[in-house]
Each structure stands twice: as C-alpha cells, then as structure tokens.
C-alpha cells in the first residue's frame, strides 16, 4: 500500500468504517511508516477539535465575539424591526390605529 492510499483510507474512515481487509492493510502500513502515523494522529486531533467546537449547544464557541459598535448597531436595527413589527400587529388587530396615525402625520 502506498502512503497516498493509506491517507485516503485514513480520511475515509472518519465518515464510514473500513472493511476488515482495508483496516488490516492500514495497520500493516502504520507499522513501518511514521509519517502516515503522524498524519493519522493529526487528522484524529483535528476531528476531535471539530467535534468539540461545532455544536452551539456544546462548549461556548471560543472567539473574539462582536465588537461594541457592531453590537450597538445590531441592537438598534433589531429594535427598529421589532417596533415596526409590533406596530404592524397592532394595525392588524385594530385598523383604526393606522388611520389615526396617518392623520396625525398628515396634520
């Protein structure tokens, strides 16, 4: 088995189990190829890292977070849409509120 084929098996086995023959061939290859062992260990560590951090329900996502200015802008925009939505709902429930508002604006 070449190193290239071993690498293919190593990445494939993350998503689907290898056949017993493929696994045995890979184990044989590991026995005499340190680079392939190193590659396999790195792939395993990367996969563990991805599994740990990919879920929003798992650990808090490490990272810088939003900066204060963006947060403020986002908050303002959210409140604008929230207010507009509430007004629309109010109008839907009581159409007279729309008429009176419009009259106020016209006056």
């Amino acid at each position, binding site marked *: 088995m070449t190193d290239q084929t071993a690498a293919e098996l190593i990445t494939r086995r993350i998503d689907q189990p290898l056949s017993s023959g493929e696994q045995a061939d890979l184990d044989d290859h590991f026995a005499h190829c340190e680079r392939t062992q190193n590659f396999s260990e790195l792939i395993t560590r990367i996969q563990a890292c*991805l599994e740990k951090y990919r879920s929003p329900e798992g650990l*808090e996502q490490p990272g810088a977070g939003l900066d204060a200015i963006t947060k403020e802008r986002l908050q303002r925009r959210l409140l604008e849409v*929230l207010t507009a939505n509430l007004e629309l709902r109010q109008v839907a429930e009581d159409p007279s509120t729309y008429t009176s508002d419009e009259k106020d604006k016209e006056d």
Partner: protein
Amino acid sequence: MDPQNWVSRYGDQLYNYAVARLGNHHLAEEVVQEALLDAVRSMAKFKGQSTEKTWLFGILKFKIADHYRRQWKLKRPLSLSDEANPEERLFDGNGKWIEDAFGGTLGNLELSELWQVVQRCLHALPRNQACVFVLSVLEEKKREDICNELAISAANLSVRLHRARLGLAKCVAEQWPM
C-alpha cells in the same frame, strides 16, 4: 421570547459560530444580523418546542447553508481535475509522502488553540472544498442532501472532502510545527 436581549445574550456566540464557518468577519456580522431580523419577523411561528437559543441557532445555520448554496451556484465550481489538489503537494509520483510532509511527532496542543488554527486553515482551502467541508463536517448535513443541493455526485463529494481534510492537515501541520 426576549428579543430585546438577544444581542447581549447570544450575539457573541452567534457571531463566533458564523465566523468559524464563513471565515469573514463582515460576512459573519451580516449573516447574524439577517438571522436575528428574520427571527424577529417570524417570532409568531416559534412554537416553544426548543429553547430560544436553539431556535436562533437553527435560523443562523439555515442562513449559513444558504450562503454556501448561493455561492456554489453563482460561481461555477471548477471540475475536480481543475481544482487545487493537495495530493500534488504531499505525494511524489509513486504515492510516497514528500520529504517534509508530516515528518515530526505532534507536540502538545490545547484544543482551543488548535481550533483557532483549524479555522484559519479551513478558510484558506479552495472555495469548493471549504464549502463541502463546512456543510458536511461542521454543519453535519447528510451527504445525500449536500449532493442534491449542490448537484454533485457522492463520489465527487467524497473526493472534495478527502482533499479538504488533506489540505487542512497540511496547513495545520505547517502552522503548528511537529
């Protein structure tokens, strides 16, 4: 539902989640904003079957997947033979590791530090490989769904995922000498 406090309560988590998948701060901000605004507009549809946080993340996940779907369709993907193939930089003509590939043993790595390196390397991958990797590995979408959405075969997806993993490992190894 407490939309007035969404930004302070979940803003950082939503943003960090998005930037890890999109690799671009402005794009991540944009997608988080879109997700929160969509959430406000569709609050009436929230049935309370999940937590507020899970619901918001669900909307964000949809937005991220949608971004990748649109990008894939907008920019015609390269064929597999034209796409950058990390195998060419890792193996010689006989399928042997080239001299400097994975030659040393791994040192101790903090998982949180590794995560920062992985994110940088993920977004240095060719666009098509990053796309299938994010959808499959980070978003955990089913392979059949990815193939249907991107109109690619299962074999094509497997090759791109393999190349993405190889490219990622090569980049991580280079940034974190063994």
